[in-house]
């Protein structure tokens, strides 16, 4: 791993039907996956609210990855259509507030795309690693008087 010892912590929201299955397939296929990915399973990427992304970032995650079914393949028909409106909009707002856009990524992984899952997660971990830790004043005034 990298020289400076920084290991980003990435919260990955994976939809049950495609991306979680894709992660499973990647595991079964014994693909090398970065250990930095901390998966949280949701039934649909449409479940991932802006609150959840922010909560992860403010709770110490260095990046958030949202993975869903490809457009048109949503198990629920239209759930990922909501995601694809919501997450890019949040990404822009975050960037506007001064947080690097590369700390949030939305992508699609189907249940069969083990290689794609490995590629996306590796890419994302490396991108966040390059950015360094997310430094928001999290522990400010912890012992203030």
């Amino acid at each position, binding site marked *: 791993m990298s020289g400076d010892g920084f290991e980003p912590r990435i919260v990955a929201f994976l939809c049950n039907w495609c991306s979680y299955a894709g992660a499973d397939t990647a595991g079964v296929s014994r693909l090398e996956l970065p250990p930095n990915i901390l998966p949280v399973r949701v039934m649909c990427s449409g479940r991932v609210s802006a609150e959840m992304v922010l909560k992860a970032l403010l709770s110490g995650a260095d990046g958030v990855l949202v993975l869903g079914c490809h457009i048109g393949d949503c198990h629920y028909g239209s759930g990922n259509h909501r995601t694809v409106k919501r997450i890019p909009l949040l990404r822009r707002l975050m960037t506007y507030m001064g947080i690097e856009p590369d700390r949030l990524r939305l992508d699609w992984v189907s249940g069969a795309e083990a290689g794609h899952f490995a590629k996306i997660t590796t890419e994302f971990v490396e991108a966040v690693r390059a950015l360094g830790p997310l430094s928001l004043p*999290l*522990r400010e005034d912890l*012992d203030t008087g």
Partner: protein
Amino acid sequence: MKFIETRALHEWLDRLAQEMPLIAPTAVGPQEKAPGSRNPAAQGQQVFYREVEGAAQIAWDFTRTALSAREHFMPKTETLFTIETGPDGKAVLHETKLAQPRVFFGIRPCDARGLRVLDAVMLGQEPADVYYAQRRQNTTLVGLACPQMWEDCFCNSVGGAPDAADDVDILLIQVEGGFAVQVVTAKGERLAAGMGLQEVERLELPQPKLNEQFALPTQQQWLASFNDVYWQRVGDRCLSCRICSYVCPTCRCFDVRDETVVTPQGERIVRRVRAWDSCQGVNYRVQAGGANPRANLEQRLRNRFYCKYYYVPIDYAADGCVGCGRCVIACPVNIDIREVLQDLARREPA
């Protein structure tokens, strides 16, 4: 009569800031804003009581600060203690460090007077709030008298005065070339010893311009008005925000919660947090089980006035309002406490 030249005062303050925390009025925020804005807060920099590094940072010509002195005795947020996992895997409780000696310079007489209510609530009965008590004991108040009553001030109607020395340790009154100094308490004496004060025979103290005094409603009037439709009419306009409580020097409601936070290092910490709360918020009065006796907005708004003028005087024998005028200015829909008081005072006791 004691006197200090402006330059000597500045030098003393600069020295003081090296020795201990010095809190004083100072301008905060970006300068380039919207000077013409209808929102006074948006017009330019606002003055707050903040820790300063020397006299140069102090805002000398200020009317009143955006927030009262309360935030330095009862901070908006304070961590009471934390629980962390120790090296042996057991939980360790860390108590928050208690306050160091400090000087609060430039406090307005009305803000100092507001501390009476906080004292009554936090210290008036056992057990005293240790966090508040420590800050209070370790702080020497150096008051700065108002040269006049500003627009929207009404301290003289609620028993105060722009140059009242009653609640400070030292009071400074600006005069030609410097400040007249009234050392009020023993704590003030100790601080004043280092100030290098001059003794002058006679000093012409300015007479501050006062605003017209008005009569407050009587207790009977308050009692009789509780169920009046009047509160609905005032409540019509109210947005149910908390500006009035948060800018108020005598509001002291708080909430306490235990929170779990994860540090960037991935450690989990539990902390007990105390933060300001306001009776204007809809959740304030919710009881376990969900009942809310003040679910309606006008009930909450009414509570604010009764708290200041009826409950506090009876419960704590203190004046609940010091007439600083902050809520008058800050209310976005112009609910003017003076108007409410005068409306009620005009009413026939039922």
